[in-house]
């Protein structure tokens, strides 16, 4: 089972850099942009490791760390502090509360990984997973079809998103202007799926590609509870979607 790593930082840049650092490993990456979100996500997902910034709005890292240590189910969760605060007094403060390690920004990704490896067992991502994601893409009747797997975790979302960029470039070269996102195998609607749908739609819009989504009734109802997905073109079958795309 993939390790769950939660990165809590108000900087989207840092969250992306941390996520990228763990990409070669069998990890599910979770993100929060402040201590309040971080605590809620930690309570729900029970991560194996937390990478935590200090200076954040709403609730800073020191307060989040203190609250974590007061939660019986979360207090043993290892934390690496990742911070621009290198002053000795701050470092001493967080070490006293209880972190496994700390890294001062700027940092090299390799240093983060080495410190993480000393705390959790990082396994290299199986090549099969990446190959499996590649197989989600196929060209049918001049349309790029992307069939999502039954469970769209954060790591699946990141892999698909990463492959999609390359696929769109290939589509542009081949003169393919239509994409069909097939959700018929998906069994669970959560934030990762919604983010992936929105990201795919944005990429298609930027590349001036027509896009349709295939989803069944129950899934469509759940998707429509997310305002980010409201208004997106959803069809009940692949044939309907292809017809709408003008095939």
């Amino acid at each position, binding site marked *: 089972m993939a390790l769950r790593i939660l990165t809590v930082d*108000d*900087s*989207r*840049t*840092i969250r*992306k*850099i941390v996520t*990228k650092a763990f990409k070669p490993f069998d990890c599910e990456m979770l993100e929060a942009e402040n201590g309040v979100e971080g605590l809620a996500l930690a309570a729900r997902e029970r991560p194996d490791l937390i990478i935590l910034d200090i*200076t954040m*709005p709403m609730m800073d890292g020191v307060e989040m760390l203190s609250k974590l240590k007061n939660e019986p189910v979360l207090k043993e969760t290892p934390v690496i502090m990742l*911070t*621009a*605060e*290198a*002053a*000795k*007094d*701050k470092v001493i403060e967080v070490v006293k509360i209880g972190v496994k390690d700390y890294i*001062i*920004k*700027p*940092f*090299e990704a390799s240093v983060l990984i080495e410190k993480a490896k000393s705390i959790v067992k990082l396994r290299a991502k199986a090549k099969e997973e990446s190959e499996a994601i590649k197989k989600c893409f196929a060209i049918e009747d001049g349309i790029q079809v992307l069939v999502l797997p039954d469970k769209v975790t954060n790591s699946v979302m990141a892999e698909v998103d990463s492959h999609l*960029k390359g696929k769109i470039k290939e589509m542009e070269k081949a003169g393919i202007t239509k994409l069909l996102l097939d959700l018929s195998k998906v069994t669970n609607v959560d934030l990762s799926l919604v983010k992936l749908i929105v990201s795919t739609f*944005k*990429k298609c819009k*930027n590349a001036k590609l027509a896009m349709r989504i295939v989803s069944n009734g129950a899934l469509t109802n759940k998707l429509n509870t997310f305002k980010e997905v409201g208004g997106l073109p959803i069809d009940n079958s692949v044939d309907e979607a292809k017809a709408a795309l003008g095939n």
Partner: protein
Amino acid sequence: MGEIDKLDLKTLIANAIGEVFDKMVSLEAGVTAMGPQENEIEDRIVGSIGFGGEVMGRVNIHLSDAFARLIAASMLGIELEDIEEQEEVDDVISELSNMIGGQLKSHISDFGLPCELSLPSITTGSDFQIESRGWVRHEKVGFGHQRHRALAEVYVKPGN
């Protein structure tokens, strides 16, 4: 005031820029004693961060939008054309300012002048000047990569 005078702000900020670029941007940043004037930088983006305590300070990093995009692509490990939104660039420069300011603030704190870092902010535009008043020291260094030139400023004054 005496302690603030002893701070080698130019060296501190030059070292901070070098370290950030070396570890996270993967671009060589040549630091120079003098930088461009603010109005010489086209389509400017300015990352700012403050610190306060025994000493109060502000760091402004002035870059062209083109240089900012190059830095963003390099830091995020993506191609330039894969930058989707200006928000991505703004966030990278915000974090760059945070790290440079953080390094500076940490050295100042360890020097015996404890202070706290604020949250960074971003200003963009093509025709504006940032006027900072009431500071007792103001130092500037230039830095750049290939044809791109940028300016880092630091202002300090006694705090509490």
